[in-house]
């Protein structure tokens, strides 16, 4: 029974939202449901944040490996939560935006979160290099095509691409590497992207139907 109700909810809500697209009076349903989702997600924070606290407190009390760092997480979490929820150090008081200019919360964001996340993001520069060193090898036909395409585009984005091929006459200018790079981006690259997207569109439609019809129910747990 419990599962039946859940499947009925999915069926009802799913169908309702599909149908609502075609019915103007129900247009705002989409925004309302998005808000509903956000609100439920905030409730879920209790579970997530609670779990975070539990994991690190256990680590700390049982003196598991690296328990010292759990103190860092716990202190960071508690301090920021208190500052954030009570708007401590916010010049505008309770009515101000939590991220108001000059607030402690925003200062923390600018000086702790920004350097951390942008450096993490910047690691990509290194990983892009190591991945291309390892992956772009002419192991087989597919890998060779991947390699050639990447090489032409990369070369086309440096001054050397033009330098190497600037002698090519205008009537053959597609063979100049920067032009070739643009041409590839606008033809083969576009074709591949479109084929992938059309496939994704169908995949999502089929997956959604399976969910709405209750055929796909893994997230609810298997039948006992």
């Amino acid at each position: 029974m419990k599962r039946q109700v859940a499947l009925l909810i999915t069926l009802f809500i799913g169908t309702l939202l599909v149908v609502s697209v075609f019915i103007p009076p129900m247009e705002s349903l989409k925004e309302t449901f998005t808000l509903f989702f956000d609100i439920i997600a905030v409730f879920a924070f209790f579970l997530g944040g609670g779990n975070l606290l539990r994991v690190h407190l256990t680590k700390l009390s049982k003196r598991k490996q690296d328990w010292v760092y759990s103190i860092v997480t716990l202190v960071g979490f508690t301090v920021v939560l208190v500052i954030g929820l009570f708007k401590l150090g916010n010049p505008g008081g309770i009515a101000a935006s939590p991220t108001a200019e000059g607030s402690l919360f925003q200062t923390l964001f600018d000086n702790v979160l920004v350097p951390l996340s942008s450096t993490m993001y910047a690691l990509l520069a290194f990983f892009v290099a190591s991945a291309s060193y390892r992956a772009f090898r002419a192991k087989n036909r597919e890998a060779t095509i991947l390699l050639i395409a990447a090489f032409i585009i990369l070369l086309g984005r440096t001054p050397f691409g033009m330098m190497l091929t600037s002698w090519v006459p205008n009537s053959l200018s597609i063979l100049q590497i920067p032009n070739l790079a643009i041409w590839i981006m606008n033809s083969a690259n576009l074709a591949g992207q479109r084929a992938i997207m059309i496939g994704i569109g169908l995949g999502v439609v089929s997956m959604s139907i399976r969910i709405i019809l209750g055929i796909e129910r893994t997230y609810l747990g298997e039948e006992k």
Partner: protein
Amino acid sequence: MDDQLYRQPVFRVFQIFLIIFTVLAGSIFAQDPAIGLTDSADVFVPAPPGAVKATDVVYDQGGAVDLEWELSPDDDGSLKVSGYYICRREVGGEDYRLVDSVMAGVRTFVDETVEQDHTYQYMVAVNGDCSTAPSEESNSITPDMEWLNFGLSNLFIIGLVICGSVIYFIAHAKRGKKFFIRKIAGLEAVDEAIGRATEMGRPILFVPGILDMDDVQTIAALTILGRVSRVVADYDTKINVPVSRSLVMTAARETIKSSYMAAGRPDAYSDDMAAYITDEQFGYVAAVDGMMVREKPATCFLLGAFFAESLILAETGNSIGAIQIAGTARPAQLPFFVAACDFTLIGEELFAASAYLSGEPKQMGSLKGQDVGKAIAMVFIVLGVITTTLAQAWDIGVFTWISDLLHDLFQVTS
């Protein structure tokens, strides 16, 4: 359509009354120099704009009116006219009030400040240097709400055909029809990858992307997690599912738990298998990276919605020598997975994976339905390309017509 309502006799009479009233009011208004300095001899007064036509905006909730008028004859690109004032009043009520103004040369306006089922009249006044001249009053208009959006009928038809074929093949499979489904390399490798982790005595890492449950990719990833954790339960291997959203944590726990129950090992399940890290994209990545280098999982699954972190995770996983099975429906991240992982589920394959892994005929049937969708796409692309080519190269009427028709069919206005 509820137009019918207004066709009832009572409303007819009311409408006729309104029209008479309108004409009367209009003529009175026109004589009354309410706006502008019309009498002064040395002030240029532009000629008033022509007839104002008000129509209800279709397929909405009744909150908008379309206006169209003829430009004032003096609005010829010279500087004599600076713009138009749009004025509105409710029929039978107050005076005209200014709604908005538009620049010279503009002949249409959409008034989105009206309320449903009220009746309005409009007037457009042309604005000269220091004088205005009003148009005649418009027809009265009652914005109403439509119950069906016929503007989306092509979306409806295409959706019906595609959903229909998916459902048809699901039903077909239910009756016992077996379909051929080709092998999907990444999925064939799942069992082997889990077996490898078991042999090496190392854990399995499953990353379900960084988006919440409101993204289909996350749900697809969780359904695959269901199959993976079933095998994991059988093999008695350790599985770690770090997640970046609390809701995903809840759903992942539910999924793993039921897999363990199904495998007959509810005792081996623990909530610690799925743990929430943080909502912050790169904070999550930092923690998962740390987890990778410290616990050295033998197998990493990177399935779901990924953004820039795709390559950071895949490269770190690669550096610890893990077998990596990745998959996403974000085209921008696929190249990185292809470059750095052993197997990649490309777009549609991610959604097909759960059906494929389940082995249930019903689910396999839906894959056949998707193929029908692809066939339809291919047929229409061929038709569209041929007719567009013929229409453009030789300008043959019938092909232009078909090509326009196809463009309209696959053109969705919101």
